[in-house]
């Protein structure tokens, strides 16, 4: 579904990503972890072309992201993305947030978009909040709405960029629950996150990144179960993060 | 638009048809000179008045603050051309008869220049006042307290602690105001002062080449803009406080 081949990116002299390669198969859930500045957010943003790359190739469902012939708008409408800061549109109500891209990008009729929006709002537990504005919702509610917004586009895969990092601890679980549910339904997901509990529950594979490179790319069982076989850098990271 | 128009840039070097011993370029330069004198004189008044009023607006004394607020309220809410006419036509009438007569007997150009300088000075002063006020208000509140706690009187606190930093913060908007006063100087043409835009109009009337005249005047205004920006940038660099970006701590 997603293929990342030898991707490199630099800002001037600073190498953000160096020779990263991995694949995500349909229905797989891949968690990307690593210290700050390791390039994991950048990597995930290259998948839908929000971050351009200098070298390498990225394919989503066979379509090359970097090729000038690709209609990026269409591609992005099929790849769902959830941001750390939710990024709901503050001047639109929740239901309008969910329908605007359906109408303007996918060309759906208003009532069709509206129905779909309400269905997904119900699925994430926000049916009552449809007419409210983002500022009136809690962080957890906003992020769930953001997930619903991405789902309304009927994406072929979902990308999550640290979806719970900006949330108060009490609200992290309500968002994780939605994500777990999605994973169990067979959604192809790639998540940048620090939530190792989530990884242990539903991830198929774990990728560990450091300083712009993919250091580890193994199955969940291997990553958490066989710590001895891991690289030193990964061991260091795991020992710190698993203490929580 | 320019189909039937014959451009002639040499028109500037032609001697003027009024018999004065100068050419049209000379007229433009005379206008430029008046513009510069007007703008710089007005700036001096504006800084003096503006700083005082800006300080007054930030003092704890209600009456002094109200004085500053009234000043700004009047001079920022009346169009500059109306203010200018008030200085030139109204003030001489409202002065005591002896002063009024004395003023009206001055050479016309002096009357015009004086009115224009006072008008632009106080007009710009109101804007400078607001800049200084903002500059002082962006300083952390503790600055004033710390100064007073050391035993400095309030005037001393302003002079040694608050104003020095407020000025630095205010340099970028002050640059805009300097540019504005040069532009606003054009309004003096309406009372007959022969500054740059008035001379450009003169050229249009005396030669048949309006486009060249206006183009030249426009070029001069743009150059003034560039020079002011460069000078103010130098000022900003020379008074820069290391590690203190724009007044925010």
């Amino acid at each position, binding site marked *: 579904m997603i293929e990342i081949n030898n991707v490199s990116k630099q800002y001037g002299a600073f190498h953000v990503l160096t020779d990263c390669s991995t694949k995500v198969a349909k229905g797989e859930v891949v968690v990307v972890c690593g210290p700050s500045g390791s390039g994991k957010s950048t990597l995930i943003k290259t998948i839908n072309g929000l971050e351009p790359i200098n070298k390498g190739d990225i394919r989503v469902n066979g379509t090359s992201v970097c090729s000038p012939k690709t209609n990026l708008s269409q591609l992005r409408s099929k790849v769902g993305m959830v941001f750390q800061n939710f990024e709901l549109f503050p001047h639109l109500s929740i239901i309008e947030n969910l329908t605007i891209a359906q109408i303007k990008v*996918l060309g759906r009729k208003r009532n069709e978009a509206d129905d779909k929006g309400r269905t997904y709002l119900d699925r994430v537990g926000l049916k009552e909040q449809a007419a409210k504005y983002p500022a009136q919702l809690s962080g957890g509610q906003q992020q769930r709405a953001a997930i619903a917004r991405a789902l309304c586009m009927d994406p072929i895969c979902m990308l999550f960029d640290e979806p719970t990092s900006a949330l108060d601890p009490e609200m992290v679980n309500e968002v994780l629950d939605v994500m777990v549910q999605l994973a169990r339904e067979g959604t192809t997901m790639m998540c940048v996150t620090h939530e190792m509990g989530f990884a242990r529950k539903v991830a198929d594979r774990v990728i560990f990144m450091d300083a712009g490179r993919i250091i580890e790319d193994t199955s969940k069982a291997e990553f958490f179960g066989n710590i001895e076989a891991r690289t030193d850098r990964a061991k260091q990271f795991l020992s710190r993060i698993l203490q929580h | 638009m320019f189909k039937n128009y014959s451009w002639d840039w040499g028109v500037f070097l032609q001697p003027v048809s009024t018999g004065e011993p100068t050419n049209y370029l000379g007229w433009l330069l005379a206008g430029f000179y008046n513009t510069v004198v007007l703008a710089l004189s007005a700036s001096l008044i504006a800084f003096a008045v503006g700083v005082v009023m800006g300080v007054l607006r930030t003092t704890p004394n209600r009456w002094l603050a109200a004085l500053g607020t009234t000043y700004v309220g009047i001079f920022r809410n009346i169009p500059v051309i109306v203010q200018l006419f008030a200085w030139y036509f109204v003030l001489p009438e409202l002065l005591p008869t002896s002063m009024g007569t004395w003023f009206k007997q001055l050479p016309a150009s002096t009357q015009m220049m004086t009115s224009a300088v006072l008008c632009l000075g106080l007009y710009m002063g109101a804007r400078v006042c607001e800049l200084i006020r903002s500059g002082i208000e962006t300083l952390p509140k503790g600055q004033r307290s710390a100064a007073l706690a050391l035993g400095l009187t309030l005037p001393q606190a302003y002079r040694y602690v608050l104003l020095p930093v407020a000025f630095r913060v205010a340099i970028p908007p002050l640059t805009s105001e300097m540019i504005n006063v040069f532009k606003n100087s054009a309004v003096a043409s309406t009372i007959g002062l022969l500054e740059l835009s008035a001379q450009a109009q003169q050229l249009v009337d005396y030669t048949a080449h309006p486009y060249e005249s206006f183009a030249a005047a426009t070029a001069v205004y743009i150059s003034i803009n560039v020079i002011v920006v460069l000078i103010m940038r130098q000022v900003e660099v020379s008074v820069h406080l290391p590690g203190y970006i724009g007044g925010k701590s």
Partner: protein
Amino acid sequence: MIAIDLLSDITNSLPSLAAGMVTSLKITAIAVVFGIVWGAILAVMRLSSFRPFALFAQGYVMLLRSIPLIMVLLWFFLMVPQLIQNLFGVSPRTDIRLVSAMVAFSLFEAAYYSEIIRAGIQAVSRGQMSAANALGMPYLMAMRLIVLPQALRATVPALLTQGIVLFQDTSLVYVIGLADFFRSAKNIADRDGNTVEMILFAGSVYLIISLLASAGVQFLQRGGRYVKVG
């Protein structure tokens, strides 16, 4: 005594003064509307990654902010009749002053509005554009539906304040002889000889209108419902 004379003078001249005020307001309204539209376009051009657009917008704004408004009015008063002649082939018989003033003010104010709007656009978090892009919206659609609405809403006080400045600036049409409120007042002063009173009267009117308008803007600012997220 003076006050009673003044009052009767004004009442007699009310029609011309009112007509003048209408002209002032007409110019203000047209210039605000066209200024904001063209200013928004310029702001987007300025921020675009297509160099020619960015350079054009930058140059336009820099040029119009360097020249006095009086010169811009004179330029357009000079050029508009020629332009109309060349574009429509008709020699303008009607008074072209109002049209040239409206064109001049719109183009001039757009430069100032574009700077306000540009600051507003840059204040909208970049994540909003990313989120819109991630949903598949191309740049211009995202700009139009997501970024500009937020930018405009946030800059409404600044836009309105600029409108008040514009209203005061309309008095400069004096130099092209257009009968706005101030020119009308001055014409009456010249005709009736009560220059002092008329100038003070005109000044007071502008003062009151501007103060009320500013108070209105501040009131709007406090009652605004738009609240920032996050």
